[in-house]
């Protein structure tokens, strides 16, 4: 019975013009989206490599210079693009791509692509994730909205009833007829993406199992939509109404709820403005040692403490240059201040995430979106990871530079310059995105929510749809 229903439905689907056209359009869109993304990916990575190397050159060839001047001159950390961003661009467009690493200051990543684009960019981009997340669910609705209503409208329902068919088997047939084409198209897309990625030059950290997990997430998402569409189709009497209801669900889940969630999250757990943030940091910075200011109360306290520790009575007798030591202490204090304030931002974001997870109860789109971005390493968490790695590197760099001055000069000595080949000794900045296992770990709640959706939608479909 299942296979018969399946065969009949599949035949019918492919006989219909709208299905063929819809499939063709979706495939065409996907093709274009993938092509554009590959171009962009290669382009961005070439620019990234060029920028990174050029910046390192600049750093290495500073010539003779005072280490603290070099610290102010600073260096840049550039954010690379990861292979799976080809499938899901995530929030990449909205985060900056380069962080300026300088003395005394933790800077945020600057130059987000969105800030350089026209207002149209906010409608969305023609990228694979747009098609996977928005258009394929629409395709599911288009294919399945009349699964049951058509039997009613054509009068075949009475015939079926007289055959004494099992409700469950009939449902399974319909379900698999809807699932198979969607599964095939998704599988083909992901397979193509994988092949494309392995054939790209410098595909970096691409791993097939990440792609596989991502594929499973999308399949789960589509199954949820299939279940909902079939449920609606079995509950309402007319095809037109079934279509309108399914569509309302789509709009609610994919457009309205995410937007509303973003509004609620923002009003409940707001970020400070950039200027407020800077003012707060400054306020806290003033409470500790400032490396450039030997006259402050905190600097005097540090002096006394160090003198006592080394059992000497003048700064000249210390085995290192106290000015550079103070500079380093100031740096450490400032790093702590930044750590505190950025942690506050993170906390706010964790709170915001809770709002998103809460609203995921009415939108399967939300957990899917977050999971997909996370696996592609294009989510906000990865961006935080990158920013933190850059900060750790910045702090290490400052120590590296201050230590050099502390060891090679005496207190009160001015005009010291480190030799021209000193700069090369600073290790280069390296950042690796999190591994798949830790991503899964971090997103276990999203996986849980998606799982609940999957189970609940199946249960409701099987128990409430008494078609026969």
């Amino acid at each position, binding site marked *: 019975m299942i296979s018969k229903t399946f065969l009949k439905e599949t035949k019918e689907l492919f006989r219909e013009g709208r299905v063929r056209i819809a499939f063709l359009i979706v495939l065409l869109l996907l093709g274009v989206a993938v092509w*554009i993304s590959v171009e962009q990916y290669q382009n961005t990575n070439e*620019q990234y490599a*060029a*920028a990174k190397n*050029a*910046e390192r050159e*600049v750093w290495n*060839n500073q010539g003779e210079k005072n280490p603290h001047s070099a610290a102010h001159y600073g260096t840049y950390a550039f954010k690379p693009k990861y292979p799976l961003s080809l499938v899901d661009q*995530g*929030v990449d467009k*909205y*985060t*900056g*791509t*380069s962080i300026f690493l300088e003395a005394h200051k933790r800077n*945020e990543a*600057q*130059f*987000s692509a*969105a*800030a350089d*684009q*026209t*207002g*149209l*960019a*906010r*409608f*969305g*981009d*023609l990228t694979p994730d747009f098609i996977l997340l928005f258009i394929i669910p629409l395709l599911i609705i*288009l294919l399945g*909205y*009349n699964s049951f209503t058509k039997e009613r409208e054509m009068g075949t329902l009475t015939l079926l009833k007289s055959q004494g068919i099992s409700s469950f088997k009939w449902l399974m047939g319909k379900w698999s007829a809807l699932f198979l084409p969607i599964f095939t198209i998704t599988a083909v897309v992901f397979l193509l993406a994988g092949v494309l990625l392995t054939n790209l030059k410098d595909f970096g950290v691409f791993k097939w199992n990440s792609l596989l997990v991502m594929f499973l997430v999308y399949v789960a998402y589509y199954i949820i939509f299939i279940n909902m569409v079939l449920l609606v189709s079995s509950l309402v009497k007319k*095809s*037109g109404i079934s*279509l*309108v209801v399914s*569509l*309302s669900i789509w*709009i609610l889940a994919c*457009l309205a709820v*995410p*937007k*509303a969630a*973003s*509004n609620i*999250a*923002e*009003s409940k757990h*707001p*970020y*400070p*403005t*950039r*200027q*407020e943030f800077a003012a707060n940091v400054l306020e806290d910075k003033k409470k500790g040692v400032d490396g450039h200011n030997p*006259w402050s109360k905190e600097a005097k306290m540090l002096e006394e403490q160090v003198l006592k520790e080394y059992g000497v009575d003048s700064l000249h007798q210390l085995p290192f240059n106290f000015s550079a030591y103070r500079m380093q202490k100031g740096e450490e204090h400032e790093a702590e201040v930044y750590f505190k304030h950025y942690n506050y931002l993170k906390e706010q*974001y964790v709170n*915001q995430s809770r709002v998103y997870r809460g609203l995921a109860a009415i939108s399967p789109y939300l957990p899917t979106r977050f999971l997909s971005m996370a696996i592609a390493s294009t989510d906000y968490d990865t961006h935080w990871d990158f920013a933190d790695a850059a900060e750790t590197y910045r702090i290490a760099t400052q120590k590296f530079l201050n230590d050099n001055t502390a060891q090679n000069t005496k207190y009160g000595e001015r005009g010291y310059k480190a030799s021209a080949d000193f700069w090369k000794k600073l290790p280069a900045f390296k950042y690796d995105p999190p591994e798949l296992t830790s991503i899964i770990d971090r997103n276990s709640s999203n996986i849980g929510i998606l799982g609940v959706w999957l189970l609940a939608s199946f249960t409701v479909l099987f128990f409430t749809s008494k078609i026969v």
Partner: protein
Amino acid sequence: MSLILLLLFGFATYNGLQKVEKRKSDILAAKTEVKENDVLMLKLLDSVERGLSVNATPWTIPTSPMAVGNYHPRVAAMEPQPMTFISTGQADVFTHYVKPTVRSDDFALNFTEMTSPVQLLFGSFDLAFVIVYLLPLLIIAFSYNVLSAEKESGSLRLLAAQPIRIQTWVAQKLGLRFFWLSLLVIVSLLVVFTLLGLSFIVKTTTFFGLLGLTLTYMLFWFAIAFLVNLWVGSSAKNAVALLGLWVTFVLLVPSVLNQLGNTIYPMPSRNLMINEMRNLKADVTEKQDEILDNFLRDHPEYALNDSTQSRGFYHRYMASQELIREELSPLVSSFEEQLQKQQAWIGKFKWISPAILAQESLSKMSGTSKSDYEDYRKQVIVFAGKWREHLIPFLYNNQDFTQADYKDLPTFNYQPNSYSKWMASFMILIIGFCLFGLGLLRAKSLGAAGILK
């Protein structure tokens, strides 16, 4: 139906108002902070002028013009417009106030706001979203089967026997729906605005601009519905066709246009810009003395006749900054030019989708469109120049900043961008009428028999 509209409009307006409130209070807080700091600064100046010793870090004492320029910047704020709550536009990407200092570079002035990128990705549930995205769907839900329902129930044949042309009859039916929906929209908007205490009466032209745009946009969708009703067949097919058109106009056309704009006029790489800037800075640091000499040669008014005075760090620094600014300006403006080209390109094709027209027009009404922020950025850069130029003569003349000079400090006044209020409505109206005309032509060529089939 009216309840749905009330809820949607209410929630969206409330969200918009909240954002505006936050923006206002942020700006106010920043301004108050500057005022408080100014009081402290004047006190310090007073003490110094009276020859008292002051308890402050030496380089922050405001007798130095550079200390004023760096530690006492003015707030350059972009105040919200009366109708800003309508559309978030780019308001979540960009900041609404900056404090340019004499030390900051124009290109380093960061105009983006600290927002979680997830929020930017999802966008905001504002009035513009309800009007551009959701209203058409309501229209589709209520008009997809105007003709086909009659056909399916068999009453169309009866109707055809009446002395009325079918297309006229469909137009009348849709017209009636348009009338009621418009009435509902107007009433709901009025109710929501009144409940939320908005003084829309003060800004009547903008309010009517909003209504005009909403109604013409609705008319466009009714025209589409009219066309589809005459052209396609069964209720379900109509619904599919209408939804396809909705996806095309609201989602696909904007993203394809945006993508094409980016591909044809790609933005130069910001990372490569950084490289350029770094090389330049490295060069400039090496030649600081030479640059200062050249600068002074160009500015004979700053010549020092007093041998007890000398040139310090800031003299060199400001002269080098001036040079870096000049050298980098072609690179920085290449971004602007490219953006303008993209905008012009999109401008040529935006009439393909009235959704783009409507969205853009609503953002302009709110003063939150990209061009508004570009305009603000330019105003700030002009102001930053003014701020610098006001203090530079003090620096090179080695002249102290005094209390008397305080009142002459330049301040920033934001001038909102002007825009044409009716252009978009007019364009959408024309498109709508063209579609109606097309529908009537089609009906004529089909004839009554064709429609009945």
